[in-house]
């Protein structure tokens, strides 16, 4: 039995059903612990003051925004190559989650930028590429919404996701070339010199785990909903046929 068996819609519904509550509970715990830890039990940063607490929502949401797109890319590829419907529906389910994460990263960053850089918005490369990512999410979701036939929609959005990913990477480089920027470097990387101090780092990891679990829970529930909606669509069509 190959692993693709699990992508059979019926099987998928079966094995994911018990998983959903577990994910909800785990993500709830991780988020509560991490956020309480980060918000109440960490000191202020000597440079950024209390604003450093924004890091606990900003960084995880930014990471999830990117990860959601990567997941859409992978599931789109699986759909195009192996034509597993669940895969296409999972991509559809992930898009709104990714988009909200992008918006959260943008908003928390903007609020952070006001005290730190004295402006809500600057055309920094990292910020700019996030804005472009947001546009990709919008276009991708608009595409799903605009097409009636589910398989056609899956095919076209997958092609869009593929080409879009290539262009998203291109944009990232182009934007870097265009403007050097104000934004923090990658402070989670271990060899970086300006590592965020351990005090901030540990709770951040916990929140990050919470966001990942929340993302998984949301995508799973949404995928299950999409599968049901698809089934409903088929039944409705059949009833119409009489």
């Amino acid at each position: 039995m190959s692993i693709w068996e699990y992508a059979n819609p019926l099987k998928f519904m079966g094995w994911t059903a018990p998983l959903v509550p577990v994910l909800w509970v785990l993500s709830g715990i991780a988020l509560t612990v991490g956020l309480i830890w980060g918000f109440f039990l960490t000191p202020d940063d000597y440079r950024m003051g209390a604003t450093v607490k924004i890091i606990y929502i900003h960084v995880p949401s930014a990471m999830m925004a990117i990860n959601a797109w990567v997941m859409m890319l992978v599931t789109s590829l699986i759909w195009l190559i192996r034509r597993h419907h669940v895969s296409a529906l999972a991509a559809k389910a992930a898009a709104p989650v990714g988009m909200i994460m992008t918006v959260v990263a943008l908003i928390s960053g903007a609020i952070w930028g006001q005290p730190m850089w004295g402006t809500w918005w600057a055309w920094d490369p990292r910020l700019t590429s996030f804005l472009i990512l947001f546009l990709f999410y919008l276009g991708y979701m608009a595409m799903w919404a605009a097409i009636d036939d589910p398989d056609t929609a899956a095919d076209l959005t997958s092609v869009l996701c593929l080409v879009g990913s290539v262009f998203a990477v291109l944009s990232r480089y182009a934007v870097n070339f265009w403007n050097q920027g104000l934004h923090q470097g990658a402070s989670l990387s271990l060899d970086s010199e300006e590592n965020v101090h351990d005090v901030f780092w540990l709770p951040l990891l916990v929140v990050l785990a919470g966001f990942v679990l929340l993302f998984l829970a949301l995508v799973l529930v949404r995928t299950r909903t999409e599968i049901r909606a698809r089934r409903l669509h088929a039944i409705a069509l059949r009833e119409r046929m009489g």
Partner: protein
Amino acid sequence: MGGLLEVKDLTVQRGGIAVLSGVGFTLDAGAALILRGANGSGKTTLLRTVAGLQPPMAGTVRVAPDAIAYAAHADGVKAVLTVAENLRFWAGVYGSVAIEDALAAFDLGGLAERPAQALSAGQKRRLGLARLIVTGRPVWVLDEPTVSLDRAAVGLFASAVQAHLAAGGAALIATHIDLGIDAAELDVTPCRAIATTAQGVFDEAFR
């Protein structure tokens, strides 16, 4: 081994549900088949599947590559080009050159230099049909070709089809009227897919 076009046990779908199932027929050189069926019975869907514009849900369509000339409700006529320019374009696409035969067959000689937008409904339709002749393809797949045509023009069409058959071609025609062509008829009504068997691969797996 068999005819120009062989359809076996075909199931065709529209909007994700099967419309017709178990359709099968063979079309030999020189033969025409007329599809009958009430409005909404699935003739257009069947023809599009045969022409390769949409994939079959089940079953097979066996036909030589590049053998089919398809003509649908919309006839792909460009309003700002003249009749001759429209035909010449399609002739170029299909690698033929002469359009005189096609003009003559549908009595369009006098209209050759007229822009297509200044044609009446029936004249435009004749132009759409004339395109078939310049394709030079053996299998004609036609969806209600005689819409808007008057009786004389239906006669022209019938003789064009007969000439095509005589030259070793074949034709598959969906229509509601009597064309006066000597041809077999296939009523698609009995092939109507029963709702409960109308399932895509996906729904099958779901249940």
